């Protein structure tokens, strides 16, 4: 039977969140609310040194003075920051040496998530630092990495064991007072990942962390710090799914990337948090600050596949400080039902001969709103800066919206900037062309959506591309093909 767009739309709307489940693990949770005592308590709980506590308090002080930003093209009920518990750690928290010791319930969760921990060890060669709520529970492949001098651990561990590195770099890319949510994160971040690649080392495997929100009413405040020392290379993967919840959950993460001279960081994200049901109830609020800084000849590449969250507010950015540095941003954002996404990037060209590429694909269905917001800034000393941006939007149905807000600021005459944007729907002629050649409508739509996002999907590392495609299927094209 031929599959029409109408039917596809209907199926999309009724598609339940496949990864919605909730694991019952006893949690050690703080009382709700936020004040200086809570900040100190979090720091104490994590046995942090005094400088870290001070740093958090400084951030908290700034945060108290700040107001929640309203410029984004999203509407939502603002979270009550006193109604959130700022710390929750799985209770059984021994350090595991082998997978056998891990709580079977946890392992079950991983299986449902599609993280074959055991298999990954053998097959994919991916070291996984699993963040379950806020504390790292399992870390594998650490030894293999340690041989190369690579540090890959939770940030709290890094604060204990490599304070000199953390102290030197934390907050250098995203300062505490950068924005409202970054300040909040700086004050209360519970855990996250830390990665350091020494000089000249090419990380032999894809580093990966899976985030999950897993305690009712718990805000998740991840802090990720990736440092690639001179001449090194690392590919870092981050994936997210979350259980179905009625209550809106807040996620305010901060990711800082530092690529020193000649280093390269590839940061890929697949995000599939609970987007709320088809009435728009529930869902995760995702307010993330991601930024990387490139020194001389360095390269940072962001790739993201956004399919989840009720409200997304996310702008992975590159500060191209060093001469000849390169920034890239590849993104697919899919919104359905009542989802709202305001996402994009900032490319700040400071050094000479810096290059940046932005490819953004937005797909809106249902009654969702999908916005691209980007900034390309060429400063007066950035000779020969080059930027290419392309933002394409695909609309499915006439109840959704696609918006583009590109800001382009050039202060140097040698800058070359190109920006293109298009908005369209799947053309009747395109479908007809496929039909004519014996491809049914169902397959044709899948083909076109796939082709539309191919440019970005191709940028994902192999291990991730499979999962990304799976997520795209779930949120949109699964039903068509």
């Amino acid at each position, binding site marked *: 039977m031929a599959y029409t767009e109408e039917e596809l739309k209907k199926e999309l709307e009724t598609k339940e969140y496949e990864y919605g489940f909730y694991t019952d693990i006893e949690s050690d949770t703080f009382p709700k609310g936020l004040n200086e005592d809570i900040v100190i308590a979090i720091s104490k709980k994590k046995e942090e040194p005094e400088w870290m506590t001070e740093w958090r308090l400084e951030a908290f002080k700034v945060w108290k003075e700040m107001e929640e930003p309203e410029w984004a093209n999203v509407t939502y009920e603002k979270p009550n920051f006193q109604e959130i518990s700022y710390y929750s750690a799985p209770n059984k928290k021994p350090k595991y040496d082998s997978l056998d010791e891990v709580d079977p319930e946890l392992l079950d969760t991983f299986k449902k998530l599609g993280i074959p921990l055991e298999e990954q060890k053998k097959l994919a060669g991916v070291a996984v630092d699993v963040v379950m709520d806020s504390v790292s529970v399992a870390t594998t492949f650490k030894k293999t990495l340690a041989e190369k001098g690579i540090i890959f651990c939770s940030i709290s561990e890094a604060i204990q064991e490599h304070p000199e590195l953390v102290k030197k770099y934390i907050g250098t890319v995203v300062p505490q007072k950068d924005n409202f949510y970054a300040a909040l994160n700086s004050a209360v971040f519970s855990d996250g990942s830390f990665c350091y690649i020494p000089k000249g080392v090419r990380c032999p495997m894809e580093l990966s962390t899976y985030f999950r929100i897993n305690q009712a009413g718990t805000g998740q405040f991840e802090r990720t710090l990736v440092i690639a020392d001179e001449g090194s290379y690392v590919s870092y993967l981050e994936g997210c799914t979350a259980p179905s919840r009625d209550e809106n959950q807040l996620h305010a993460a901060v990711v800082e990337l530092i690529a020193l001279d000649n280093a390269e960081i590839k940061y890929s994200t697949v995000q599939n948090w609970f987007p709320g049901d088809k009435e728009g109830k529930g869902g995760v609020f995702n307010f993330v600050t991601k930024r990387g800084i490139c020194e001389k000849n360095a390269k940072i590449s962001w790739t993201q596949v956004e399919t989840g969250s009720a409200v997304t507010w996310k702008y992975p950015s590159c500060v191209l400080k060093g001469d000849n540095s390169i920034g890239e941003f590849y993104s697919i954002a899919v919104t359905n039902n009542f989802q709202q996404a305001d996402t994009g990037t900032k490319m700040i060209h400071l050094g000479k001969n810096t290059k940046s590429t932005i490819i953004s694909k937005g797909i809106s269905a249902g009654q969702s709103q999908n916005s691209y917001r980007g900034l390309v800034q*060429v400063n007066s000393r950035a000779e020969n800066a080059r930027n290419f941006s392309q933002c394409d*939007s695909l609309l499915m149905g006439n109840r959704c919206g696609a918006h*583009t807000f*590109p*800001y382009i600021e*050039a*202060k140097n005459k040698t800058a070359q900037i*190109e920006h293109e944007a298009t908005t369209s729907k799947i053309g009747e002629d395109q479908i007809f062309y496929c039909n004519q050649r014996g491809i049914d409508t169902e397959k044709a739509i899948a083909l076109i959506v796939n082709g539309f996002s191919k440019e970005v999907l191709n940028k994902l590392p192999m291990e991730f591309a499979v999962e990304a495609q799976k997520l795209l299927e779930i949120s949109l094209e699964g039903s068509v093909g």
Partner: protein
Amino acid sequence: MMDLKDKLLSSFLAFENTVDLDHPVHEVRSEAIKNFEIKGFPSKKEEAWKYTSLNNLQKVDFSIFPKRESALEYKDVKKYFIHDIDTYKIVFVDGVYSSYLSETTHDGVDVCLMSSAFSKPMFRQVIDVYFNKVASKDESLTTLNTAFSKEGAYIYIPKNKMPKKPIQILHLATGNEAALMLQPRNLIVAEENAEVQIIERHQSLTENEVFTNSVTEIFAAKDAHVDYYKVQNDADTASLVDNTYISQKNNSVVKVHTFSFGGKLTRNNLNFYQNGERIDSTLKGVTILGEKQHVDHHTLVHHAQPNCESHQDYKGIFGEKSTGVFNGKIIVDKIAQKTNAFQQNNNILLSDKASINTKPQLEIFADDVKCSHGCTIGQLDDDALFYLRSRGIPKKEATALMMYAFANNVLESVRIPELKARINKIIANKLGVRVGFEL
């Protein structure tokens, strides 16, 4: 010194003595001044004014009403007219109508003054139907103009009519006052199947400061055709905020060309509202700036009905310490299916001190549309330059030639040849060369 906002608010009381308080328009004015009192001048904190600051203007002690009348000889200002063709002329000197320099008509069409349209009963119906109907009742500078609306050009083209010749609107500032603020208010109505061509220019004749806050409302009824050309090549002490609001009905075609070559600060707010089907809206502009000039183009095209088109094409060349802003917004409503909306903005930066900020923005709620925008910032092609020079064309001329070519897309659609020639001349002057031919 009083700040400009307070001065304007207190001047409103004096202004009320000069107009008919019983006329329904005065109610509109009173509403507008209330809005301005609340809003005040826009600050850089507002998204729409992020790249353009009016702070310096607010520090100047502008006269709101010119005190002395001044007479000008035609030969002294001839060069500011497109004088090689016959046109109707509506000329204002320091904001006051100059009957000596003007040529108006009531022969089949009305080309005259807002002041007479406000006062004479025969125009009452048109004023009731159209005045302040498309202009924003909310934007602060527009409401400021509405509050002081009294004089300007009034053009009414009845059904199936077309004026015999193009119409020029010229605003001259003589420098009689140390600093003068002008607020012209224009109303242009083209009824069904009517056609009209209008050229508008603001010119300051001295180094004395002038600040013009102009509002123009254009209504194009079914099948009407309106061509509007704005020539902005003012003195370095003149600032202009031009608010133009256009309402279009079925099958109408409205084209607005904006040529920005001078002035201290120029802000163009160009708003198109498509209230019908199969409408065509064209917005084109050439901007060539030097020194410390600043031009901000803010365009809005609101597609509210199906099967319409809009075409935007803005070219900018920025030298010395000049700054350019382009902010183009396209909104496509849910019901406006089969909309084709195109937007193009190309810029060349000639100097390291010059800068350009551009924000092409799309807000789309309908799915069956074709919308695109393209935006580039770059330089002249070195290879092309080399090609020209290798054939004996000096660098300066070669550069100019390429800039001509760059701007030509926009000039192409100018339908008055004399105006096109004039624009070419201005561009040549601006670039400091003669290329020996006209495009």
